[in-house]
């Protein structure tokens, strides 16, 4: 009966949203711990940019919290604050704050943990991609915070925060969205690595490219520009790399996941999973790709489900929908899938983390 109901629901959903159309995607049953993290009384989580676990199960949350502030200086307003990075143990107990008062933390976008348990932070406003060692000390910085923010911001210019002043955000002067041939980002969104340690940055909202660096931070190449052809991007929202080094890119406004080889050559695309906003590939053999068709923060009556796929694009199933209840999602921005059936989900519009157990 339950299965019948859920497939009925799926049919209704499919009828409503043909963009996510695929014949009878099975629903994956799951449970949720809706409040897995315990916080000190004076700390609140805000919008969850990223959530990720390390090899010990410790949980890292990069969140938009506190007060993003602009202060007045030499006819150059300076941006401060607004995001913090917290560490919890595997039971959800608060361990510590990392990088208090950091220059790099203004608009939390993502946190990822690499195989060596280094903590990687992506900030969409300071344009930093930061590698912190497991103790939280900066090891490698890509990108740079714009020295100041422009006043007045150009009307309707979503990239305003990434411009003005020296450092950060400069256009490359090439094709629109192609960016500079360097580690100058414009609202970057995500980071991933291949087995050789090469770094892949999703760049992002302001640019429309993927940038590749070697493990020492030397720029290797970038690919992409604004558009909807193969190898072009609308908004690059997330990135993941599989064990073979293939690069999966959430090209969200074009409603597709594009797959590239390690050098950026277009291989294929998956167009049946809605608006991919967060990606995660499981470690180990038989890798699984999770992709969230996140609802926009201004609408909880559409989308919201997360797809479980094989790397070749075959959809295994899906779970969840937009909403405020446990087991519902509010603009998922982060998926941690270190364990295939135990996921951490970070939500922007619900300002919370959920711990899911899939029961396929």
């Amino acid at each position, binding site marked *: 009966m339950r299965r019948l109901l859920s497939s009925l629901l799926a049919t209704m959903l499919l009828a409503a949203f043909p963009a996510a159309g695929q014949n009878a995607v099975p629903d994956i049953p799951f449970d949720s711990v809706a409040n897995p993290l315990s916080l000190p009384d004076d700390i609140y989580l805000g919008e969850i940019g990223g959530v990720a676990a390390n090899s010990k199960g410790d949980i890292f949350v990069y969140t938009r919290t506190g007060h993003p502030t602009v202060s007045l*200086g030499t006819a*150059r307003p300076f941006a401060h604050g607004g995001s913090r990075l917290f560490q919890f143990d595997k039971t959800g107990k608060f361990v510590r704050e990392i990088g*208090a008062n950091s220059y790099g*933390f203004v608009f939390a976008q993502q946190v990822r943990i690499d195989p060596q348990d280094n903590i990687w932070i992506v900030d969409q406003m300071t344009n930093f991609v930061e590698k912190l060692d497991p103790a939280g000390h900066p090891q490698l910085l890509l990108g*740079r915070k714009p020295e100041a923010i*422009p006043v007045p911001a150009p009307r309707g210019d979503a990239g305003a925060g990434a411009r003005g002043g020296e450092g950060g955000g400069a256009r490359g002067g090439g*094709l629109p969205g192609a960016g500079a041939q360097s580690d100058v980002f414009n609202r970057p969104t995500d980071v991933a690595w291949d087995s050789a340690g090469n770094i892949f940055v999703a760049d992002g909202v302001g640019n429309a490219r993927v940038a590749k660096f070697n493990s020492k931070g030397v720029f290797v190449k970038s690919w992409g520009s604004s558009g909807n052809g193969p190898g072009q991007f609308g908004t690059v929202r997330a990135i993941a790399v599989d064990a073979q080094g293939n690069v999966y890119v959430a090209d969200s406004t074009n409603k597709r996941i594009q797959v590239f080889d390690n050098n950026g050559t277009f291989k294929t695309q998956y167009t049946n999973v809605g608006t991919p906003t967060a990606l995660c590939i499981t470690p180990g053999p038989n890798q699984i790709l999770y992709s969230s068709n996140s609802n926009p923060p201004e609408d909880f009556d559409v989308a919201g489900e997360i797809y479980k796929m094989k790397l070749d694009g075959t959809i295994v199933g899906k779970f969840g929908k937009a909403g405020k209840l446990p087991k519902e999602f509010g603009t998922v921005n982060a998926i941690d899938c270190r364990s295939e059936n135990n996921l951490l989900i970070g939500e922007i519009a619900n300002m919370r983390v959920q711990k899911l157990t899939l029961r396929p």
Partner: protein
Amino acid sequence: MKRCLAIVSAVVLVWCAAPLFGQQKATIQNVPEIPYTSVPNLLKVPAGETLGESVGIATNSKGHIFVFFRSNNTRLWEFDKNGNFVKEIGKGYYGFEFAHSVRVDVQDNIWTVDEGTNTVTKFSPEGKFLMVLGRRPPAVLGAVASPAGPNAPAQKYIFCRPTDVGWDPQGNIFVSDGYCNNRVVKFDKNGRFVAQAGSEKAGKEPAQFNLPHGLQVDGQGNVWVADRTNIRYQVLDNDLKPKKIYDNLGVGWTVCVSQGPHQYVFASNSNPNGNPPGSWENTGEIYKMELDGTVIGRFGRASKEFGGFQVVHMMDCRNPNEILVGEIESWRVQKLILGQPAATKTSSSR
């Protein structure tokens, strides 16, 4: 170059950019390499905190290390000579918004230059406020868009994004000013205006500047200026009259003059922010020279790795064999122990 950049082709962009950084490449040749090692784990920052853009670095006579850096707020931290954290100075101070330089004078007073508040501040060796030059733009005027067009006329006692400070043996104060003036200003030791070279206008003639970005005064009272956008160093006499120009050492990012009876000058051809294509090959090294301009050697290169440089913003060279460098990118302070220059193939650089 501007037109070149506007051409809508990434390929052409790269092709155009290469000559730009070729221009910033130092033209001096056959300079011996000075070997060096970087001291690991130099600064022990307070638990849970990190440095930010470490634009200002200085030591006092006890070897204490001062770092003036851009974190969430601009901050000034003092460490002892072993790198142990001593204290924060100026927490919440009105003149800290966007750090640019910190220097320590012969009496161990600590001077900060803040380009976000247009102020130069003198603190006692203990960190007590003593004197301020310049004024923070009043907030009551609100947030003002960076004005287009020419810079407003320079005023004697108001800076426009000042960059650095130095003193002659008599205690006169020299300020490089800055990003939206293009001048060097001399004040007496009590902060009274004496003279200026340059103006709000950028210029290429001797004693004119285009982004004077670093400044130090040697024991003879000569003023060394890193004239960054002009890609040169200028030496002025004590009355700010032009004496010498060095245009073969690459971009004039920052300059340091060591102490003691035999002074040396260190000049940094720092790699540009943003690591544009070609920049690491052509920039990043530091030159060591005599006061008469004779170049003794060079060291360092652009890299994100420890021991390499990511936009050296400032140097401390109190001891000419132990150089502290503060970097913008990579958020680092490094202490470099210099060795003897390698034997040179030719003596032409002497």
